């Protein structure tokens, strides 16, 4: 493994930029993602930085049951994220539609139909620790030796 690759691996393991997008949720999971930023969970100590610019992001947290308004938009948010990238579905909503998945609702779950999802965190809402461990578990799989794996 080249020195450059090693440096990249180290930096990527300590600097995971996360963007989140709410495609129609009840706000419960958004609050849990927010709770990850609080001193109690403090995700920045793990080198995870949350902001909302997909062009700088490595990981996209998708929240919500996919309402029709996101039909064309989620894909374009996903396409804006530079490689290497991964999307994580947070909560039951992007997995199954949760309580909204009933006859005559407009939602269109699962989100995996629309963009590739690397991991799912079930729960309504999931605990901040579950979100955190999902991000920490996905990051090395996707980012470590990315250039080597691509070749």
């Amino acid at each position: 493994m080249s020195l450059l690759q090693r440096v990249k691996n180290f930096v990527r393991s300590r600097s995971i930029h996360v963007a989140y997008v709410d495609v129609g949720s009840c706000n419960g999971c958004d609050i849990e993602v927010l709770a990850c930023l609080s001193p109690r969970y403090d995700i920045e100590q793990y080198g995870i930085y949350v902001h909302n610019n997909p062009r700088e992001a490595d990981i996209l947290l998708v929240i919500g049951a996919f309402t029709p308004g996101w039909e064309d938009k989620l894909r374009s948010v996903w396409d804006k994220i530079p490689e290497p990238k991964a999307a994580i579905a947070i909560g039951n909503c992007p997995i199954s539609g949760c309580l909204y998945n009933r006859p005559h609702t407009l939602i269109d779950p699962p989100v995996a139909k629309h963009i590739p999802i690397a991991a799912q965190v079930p729960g309504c809402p999931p605990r901040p620790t579950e979100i955190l461990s999902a991000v920490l578990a996905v990051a090395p799989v996707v980012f470590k030796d990315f250039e080597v794996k691509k070749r």
Partner: protein
Amino acid sequence: MALSLKYYLKEIFRIEWLKKFLFARTAPLGTPTYFRNFPELTGKTCTHALFCMMACPAPGAIEVIKTPEGWQPRIHIGHCIRCGLCVEACPNGVLSSGRILESMFYDNTALSFSFRIDVDTDKCMGCGNCAVACPVNKLIDAQMSFGGRASTDELLLMVSAGKCRAVHVEKCTGCKTCEDNCPNKAISVTRLLEAIHCPEEDL
């Protein structure tokens, strides 16, 4: 001067302090034992009472399926919202999650089910499909046929004066067969779930 500088540097670059500053970890990534997680099987025998499925608010979260060992509830992760109602509803304590069973035991609480049947008299055409389909009616009057004409007033549903009427609502088991069989969507069954406190009774 040199001495105090040395003293300051020593104070600032204390190893333990540096370690804490650089490698601080707050909350451990653990789950407390009392956390109400996805319900788990306790190993007690399921009697196929289906109270769990009746109480569950999330579509497709719980199913009671037949396994070689007998009936068993299956929780579908990704659908289950971890509300714990199935744990409270089960009369046999087949499921457990967090401290629900313990606190139910100490507080002497239980869930009670009742059902409410509404017939939209504007839509009902008195065909009696609901009364014929209802499995509770079937037990009371196996001879009941088209039209839902009542032979006894013990029936749950019956057609009188061209409209469906729920006579003994307390006998309803909430199966919603009547809803499925009504051609006009005139009848609807609503589940009423109440938490009750029973200081006298033993759970």
